[in-house]
């Protein structure tokens, strides 16, 4: 089905090329001369006698059109064949026709140049239906099977130089090329074919209208595709309108961005991804491209430049993603590693003091108390709680010197009883407390040895487990008197 459509397309394209190559309207009023000439060869002797001119000479016309018998007419006979992509000479065609049909030489011009039943000298350049009737093309011109194109047409690169790039530019694309499937399936249509015992390394349906350069405009993997290499180069093919390439439908799938690298075989990579993508295009996103990407080509001579990858963030990476990416990153680091290298993680997780915050909004210095109280994010993932918080607080006078009941309580002047009622706040926001207070500040009261013996342990305190894990912690407050339970 698709192959047939390609045949149609190719035939239509060829016809377009042919029509563009000749004068569309017969400049000679054949029918007005129908009673004067009884043989076509009177004027077109070259049609049956090789080496003789196909067109009448001006002097022949002047026998009547001398200004006296008939008015003079300007006439300059064409020399040589019309430049076109037709595989045709009158003599060869006539001989082949005679041989094939096993007929004598009575084949007439009208069999090709007139419609069946037409009056004498009602002629046209060629009657396409007659061509098809003889050549067993039982479809419209552009519906012809791919193998049939080569019957009448030479490959693109074998066209005479008279078929200029400008003329090629006027060729119209067959409608089949607009098919949604054409972009992804035209490779199958170009596959090698055998027609009447003749092998074609690339389908004549493609080779009739295209040369290698045209394929290379898109195909990064052109050197690896035998069908493209089977096409001879011809820069005139670049005169055609550049194809409009769209990303395949698969690329629009929601999970494509995060799953496109999975289960790709080397063959898939080379012949599918590698059609449009260079290894370089992968690097648009992948900071360290996966190992299998190495089979993809690098752009260079004989290859297309490849699809331009519009690097974009996955849907998950919205404005708030920085606050909540830890869950994904810890569960699926391989997915992250598709685009990121650890050095990028370090850029935030090991903050650079020389720059304003990347992760935090501007003037976070003024806004950070609420975040540190609520621990919207885990501060200590990026900041050493003592090295970072205590250092800055100390330099700005927000630091305890151990006189909690004395001077330091004045800092918490928003709550008059904070000094004696700070327990709930301390258990909820202990990380905040540590940003200004050292352990000895608390041990002034919360120690059973040298302190005021206020018990700091909350509900369900795992005393025994902690004692086994690290009794040194217990010793700090209990000295040698660590309770046994």
């Amino acid at each position: 089905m698709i192959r047939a459509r390609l045949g149609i397309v190719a035939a239509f394209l060829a016809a377009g090329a042919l029509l563009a190559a000749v004068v569309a309207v017969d400049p000679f009023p054949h029918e007005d001369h129908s009673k004067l000439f009884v043989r076509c060869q009177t004027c077109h002797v070259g049609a049956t006698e090789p080496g003789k001119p196909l067109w009448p000479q001006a002097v022949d016309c002047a026998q009547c059109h001398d200004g006296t018998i008939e008015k003079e007419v300007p006439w300059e006979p064409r020399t040589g064949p019309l430049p076109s992509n037709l595989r045709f000479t009158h003599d060869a065609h006539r001989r082949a026709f005679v041989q094939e049909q096993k007929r004598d030489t009575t084949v007439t011009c009208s069999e090709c140049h007139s419609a069946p039943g037409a009056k004498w000298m009602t002629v046209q350049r060629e009657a396409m239906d007659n061509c098809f009737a003889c050549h067993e093309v039982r479809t419209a011109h552009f519906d012809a099977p791919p193998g049939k194109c080569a019957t009448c047409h030479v490959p693109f690169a074998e066209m005479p130089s008279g078929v200029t790039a400008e003329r090629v530019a006027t060729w119209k694309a067959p409608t089949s090329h607009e098919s949604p499937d054409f972009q992804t399936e035209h490779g199958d249509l170009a596959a090698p074919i055998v027609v009447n015992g003749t092998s074609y390394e690339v389908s004549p349906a493609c080779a009739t209208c295209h040369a290698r350069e045209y394929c290379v405009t898109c195909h990064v993997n052109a050197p690896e595709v035998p069908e493209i290499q089977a096409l001879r180069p011809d820069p005139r093919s670049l005169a055609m309108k550049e194809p409009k390439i769209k990303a395949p439908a698969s690329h629009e799938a929601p999970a494509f961005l995060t799953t496109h690298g999975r289960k790709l075989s080397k063959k898939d990579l080379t012949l599918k991804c590698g059609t449009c993508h260079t290894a370089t295009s992968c690097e648009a996103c992948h900071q360290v491209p996966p190992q299998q990407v190495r089979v993809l080509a690098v752009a260079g001579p004989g290859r297309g430049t490849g699809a331009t990858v519009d690097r974009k963030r996955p849907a998950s990476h919205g404005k708030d993603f920085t606050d909540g990416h830890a869950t994904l990153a810890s569960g699926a680091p391989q997915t992250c590693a598709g685009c990121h290298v650890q050095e990028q993680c370090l850029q935030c997780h090991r903050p650079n003091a020389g720059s304003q915050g990347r992760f935090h909004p501007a003037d976070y210095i003024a806004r950070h108390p609420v975040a540190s109280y609520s621990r919207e994010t885990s501060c200590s993932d990026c900041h050493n709680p003592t090295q970072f918080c205590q250092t800055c607080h100390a330099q700005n006078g927000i630091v305890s010197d151990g006189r909690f009941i004395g001077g330091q309580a004045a800092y918490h002047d928003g709550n008059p009883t904070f000094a004696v009622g700070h327990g709930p706040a301390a258990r909820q926001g202990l990380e905040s407390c540590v940003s200004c207070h050292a352990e000895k500040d608390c041990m002034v009261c919360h120690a059973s040895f040298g302190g005021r013996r206020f018990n700091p342990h909350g509900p369900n305190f795992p005393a025994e487990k902690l004692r086994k894990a690290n009794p040194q912690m217990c010793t700090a407050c209990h000295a040698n008197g660590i309770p046994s339970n």
Partner: protein
Amino acid sequence: MTRPTGCATGVLVSLALATATTPAAAQGFRGSFDLRGQSVATRGWQLDSVPRSDVQPGTGGGLYSSTGYAVTCSSASYCYYYAPGPRVQYEPLVFTTDLTAWGLGTSGLSAHLNMRMNANGGDYPLAGTVPAFQLWEGYARYQHDWFMVQVGRQTFTSRLGFAGFDGGRATLHSTKLGLEATGYVGLGLARASAVGVNDVATSPLGDFIPGERNLLAGVLVGLNTQPVEARVQWQRQVDRTTDYLMSDFLTGSAVVRPLPRFALAGGLDYDLAQGWVGSADAEVRYSIPRLYVTAGYKRYMPRFDLWSIWPAFSPVPWNGVQGSVQFTLLRWLRLRGRVQWYEFEDTGAETALGSASSTGTLWAAGATVTVLPRWTFDAGWMYDKSFGAATAGGDASIGWTPINPLVLRFYGAYSNRPLVYRYDDDYVTWAGVDVTLRATQQVAVGASVVYINQNQNRPDASAFDWNQTRVSAFVTYAFSAGGADRLAVPDAVKRMPSSVGYER
């Protein structure tokens, strides 16, 4: 203070020797140099006191000094208050080198380096810039089809965060089966630091610190398939001086994609040392071309190493629910919204003299407009309330790309930040502009200027206005032996409307 740690120096020397003694020089390398600096100032507080005889009741009923400061009198003879402190100027300059080299004479062998040199002007070194030389990563890696070995200073990324250590790491993996197993062991670095937990830089208040760097070891087993990616990890830290545990965690995390548009992600930490569940989260993500929705649960439990006494104070976790939505209403209009509500578990410490709100909420909404090809307009609003503070405000930005390699971003915002435990209601407005120019594929430069107007509102003499202009600039140069010498993040990403996370 500009001194490399002994171990860092050793690693550097090892890398240098490894490179120098290979039969052939590195045949491939990729790296970058990055220089950044900024000028920023802060103004904090300064403790002061007055004799109790000098204070008197104010109109609101509290006690005030004769100079107008609200005071706290908890001592018999003196009352205390915090007056506005002096201006503190910071001017850090950071030079970062990132380098990866391969082709060192053995196929699969590569060397990696990430380090920073910090210099400081101004009054103090900015937090995090001491020591001056910081080696974040410096390791050699040997990669084979089914295993990988990595030796040197490195960072292991997992659900437990970024664990830095000097040591070795080995991974076995089967691409066909989608399985991997990793083991690692070494001398640990302090959390989010390039130095050990025993370094004075990680204990500026001079409190308890271990005598030696801890021993870090862990094992991770992972499954990588299309519908399921999962990890199970065990990680332990040991105090080498006492041989006691510093932490001992078992974690699990997974991302499951049961249907094309759905993803389920979640994880959980279990504290083996204390015998309780730590942080956990679970989230459903749904995506269609114009809509992206998430809904989930989150539990947050702070992690304190056991060499400190903080675990004895029984910090409590919070449990919350959260959701977000991104909706592309029109091709050029994207809306977003986000909400979170959480509640702390019972502290067991409420008394008549002290209680705290146990809940917190966050609301945020915004819109991005890209109706003009080279312009991006964005506006957002958020309200974030916790038990000790709140923030409410909005911000807006205009991104403009007049020519392809040049990106400008103008922005401004307003924010109100009341505190609960300190008498302080802070209003801040700011406006600024960022300029980024990718001069070539290898070189990017940028600068930022922002003016900040801050009003520290209080009903006493401690109220002050605090205005300043902050300036920063950077230059990055990327280089390589092949064709991959491009900057790490192409400017195309920065121009994207949703990339504010990169821009800010």
